């Protein structure tokens, strides 16, 4: 079957689904949806539809982004636009199916919005939802819309037209188109994609490798997982285009083992590609041949770094190597190798199909295109978003994220993961692009965005990152191995109230040394969290050192719990839950915490009914 025919069939299949006479229920079944309980919801839908004698079709889709609303389902009936419902529980299913499928009432009061063309009972479009309104979805365009296990859905929505077009161009023309788009690597370093491709293209070799970096080691980030689960073919098509451009004949996807669903989706997608001659020998009848293997990571953050990743692919300890030689010249098994991030690859098919100039129309002067971010932490509306580069932090956190959970005060946002830094609330009008984030002392990184409120202690979060880095340091070079350990020790000392003012200077000078002398990106960026928090939150460090107090009431050694005599109603919930047996008190009488037994786990603080709010935290008692 040639591609035109494959495409014609795929389009017919997709259109038939859209205009299906049988009602279709789409299930948001990415990892987040599954965690929130979509499988139980699906089971309930099956049961209820049987009871109501309804014939329905269930289709699993990826995640459309507002994860805080999971589990999410969409009901499509009679070719009307599908109606999206969030926070669905098994208990709500029966009524909803009766109302909409039997009695024709789509329940506008429960609906989040409609998806697809046309209007329905005054329900607004889903993309009018505050969380989606400010987004521009280029790379996520199919996530939550198509069934990721159906290559035909992808093909019907212009899939594999990018590689088709690329194969009609010369590799250098492809590289040129990517240059016009100005896309920079989305994995962290932001290196122009065309530039490393060109270097590799110009090296002569019988074997070349292109690796998709799906290690996503940044803890607190899940952009790559979501894309691979929701639209694996977009990434695979990008891999084909990149391979053709640089002349690679072997591909790897290096993916973290913590993403079993993404791995499953990729394996499935690869077998479908083979069936359509999109992989293997003479792809789509051209001279271009390429194969793809999946390599599972084994739990080492440093393996996201290019030279460490290459060592790991070859079955060795994932230790970085000094450069040069650069991987583009000598990488896997000594052959020219290019490594690209999942999102970079996921964007390429659209760039080739619609043109570099079209893509560079999005974004800011210096940073072109869109970028996905995982918006998490203390924000109301958490999830995965995609915005044009140059969008301000304020828009992201307050318009898309809906502001701070519990209406607490916004304190800072952490970007770039362990290699990045904290940007304070004062800088919230900062545009999110490579240069602005860098000048504010952080980095774009791969797209983790963790919102911190007044209850987050910056000394604590900094020591959190340092302990992560210190545990993940491969140990090869001493600035990183020893330097991060010494920094961590100092931070822990400060957290425990034993810090001295001289420690702040020690941290700054250590940071400079580690930054300049480390072998790889892990060590070179490790001090960023320390430097950025010292720059913006020095007074909070000083409070820990001078006043022995933790203003955010987080650092265990500097806080204490007590029960307010006026507020305690003697309900006994805290006494029953206290794991240390530190709370005493008779029923309906004021309870007391025995400080010498208290382990400061904070459970009493959490379980005290909010109508009493009797457990109180204090700090600053040591002075």
């Amino acid at each position: 079957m040639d591609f035109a025919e494959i495409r014609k069939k795929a389009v017919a299949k997709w259109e038939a689904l859209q205009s299906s006479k049988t009602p279709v229920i789409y299930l948001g079944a990415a990892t987040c949806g599954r965690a929130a309980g979509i499988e139980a919801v699906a089971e309930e839908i099956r049961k209820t539809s049987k009871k109501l004698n309804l014939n329905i079709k269930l289709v699993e889709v990826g995640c459309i982004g507002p994860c805080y609303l999971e589990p999410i389902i969409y009901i499509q009936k009679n070719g009307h636009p599908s109606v999206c419902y969030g926070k669905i529980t098994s208990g709500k299913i029966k009524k909803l199916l009766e109302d909409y499928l039997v009695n024709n009432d789509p329940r506008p009061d429960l609906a989040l919005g409609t998806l697809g063309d046309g209007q329905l009972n005054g329900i607004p479009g889903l993309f009018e939802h505050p969380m989606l309104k400010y987004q521009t979805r280029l790379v996520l365009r199919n996530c939550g819309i198509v069934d990721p296990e159906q290559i035909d859905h992808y093909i019907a929505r212009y899939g594999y037209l990018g590689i088709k077009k690329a194969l009609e161009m010369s590799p250098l023309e492809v590289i040129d188109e990517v240059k016009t788009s100005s896309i920079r690597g989305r994995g962290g370093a932001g290196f122009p994609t065309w530039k490393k491709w060109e270097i590799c293209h110009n090296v002569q070799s019988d074997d070349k490798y292109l690796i998709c970096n799906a290690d996503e080691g940044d803890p607190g980030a899940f952009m790559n997982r979501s894309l691979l689960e929701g639209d694996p073919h977009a990434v695979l098509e990008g891999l084909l285009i990149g391979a053709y451009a640089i002349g690679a004949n072997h591909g790897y996807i290096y993916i973290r083992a913590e993403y079993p669903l993404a791995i499953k989706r990729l394996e499935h997608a690869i077998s479908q590609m083979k069936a359509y001659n999109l992989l293997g020998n003479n792809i789509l009848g051209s001279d271009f041949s390429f194969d793809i293997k999946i390599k599972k990571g084994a739990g080492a953050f440093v393996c996201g770094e290019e030279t460490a990743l290459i060592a790991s692919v070859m079955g060795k300890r994932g230790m970085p190597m000094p450069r040069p030689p650069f991987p583009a010249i000598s990488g896997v098994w000594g052959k020219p190798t290019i490594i690209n991030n999942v999102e970079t690859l996921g964007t390429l098919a659209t760039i080739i199909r619609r043109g570099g100039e079209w893509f560079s129309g999005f974004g800011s002067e210096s940073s072109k295109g869109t970028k996905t971010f995982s918006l998490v932490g203390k924000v109301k509306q958490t999830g995965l978003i995609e915005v044009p580069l140059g969008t301000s932090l304020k828009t992201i956190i307050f318009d898309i994220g809906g502001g701070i959970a519990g209406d607490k005060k916004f304190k800072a946002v952490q970007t770039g993961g362990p290699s990045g830094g904290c940007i304070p609330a004062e800088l919230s009008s900062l545009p999110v692009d490579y240069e602005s984030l860098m000048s504010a002392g952080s980095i774009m990184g791969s797209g983790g965005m963790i919102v911190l409120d007044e209850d987050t202690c910056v000394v604590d979060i900094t020591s959190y990152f340092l302990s992560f880095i210190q545990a993940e340091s491969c140990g090869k070079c001493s600035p990183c191995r020893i330097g991060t350990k010494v920094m961590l020790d100092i931070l822990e000392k400060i957290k425990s109230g034993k810090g001295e003012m001289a420690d702040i200077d020690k941290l700054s000078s250590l940071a400079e040394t580690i930054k300049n002398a480390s072998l790889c990106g892990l060590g070179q960026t490790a001090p960023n969290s320390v430097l950025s928090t010292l720059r913006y939150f020095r007074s909070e460090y000083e409070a820990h050192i001078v006043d022995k107090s933790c203003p955010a009431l987080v650092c265990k050694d500097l806080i204490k719990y007590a029960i307010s005599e006026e507020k305690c109603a003697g309900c006994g919930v805290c006494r029953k839950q206290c794991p240390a047996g530190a709370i005493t008190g008779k029923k309906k009488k004021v309870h007391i915490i025995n400080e010498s037994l208290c382990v400061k786990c904070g459970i009493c603080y959490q379980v005290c009914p909010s109508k009493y709010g009797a457990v109180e935290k204090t700090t600053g008692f040591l002075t």
Partner: protein
Amino acid sequence: MKNTIKDIIKPYQGEKGSLIPILQAVQEKTGFISEDAVSTIALSLNMSEHEIYGVATFYTQFRYTKPGDHMVKVCLGTACHVRGGEQLLNRTENILNIKPGQTTPDSAFSLERVACMGCCALAPVIVVDDKIYPNVTSPKVEKIISKYSSPDEKE
């Protein structure tokens, strides 16, 4: 034992750089990397056992003792950390009376800390076996664990 390890290795024979996938397959099928497994792998890949331990211990995924019937993983990624992951870990340690990396004496549970399950928008999360529990609070930990305790262990 030796035979099954050999069977696991077979499909990878002759493939370059296959040590890590072999270790992963062995752990997936047998639960951990035993000394026996290492010597069998060493023989068939023509490597020294030292080399194999050298590679295996670099990666946090590999275990060298038999895990319990249920694996409890508490996420301490950044999103989970800022939403109270540490408290969940303390609570879990208390309930199971073990530290991360250990297994309960009755072999019912093993405890591990992990750095992000990719479910950060629903932080903090706990994973038991393959099931992810979202938005967990300290009081909920007990309920989750008790689902996996067999009745006679519950007292």
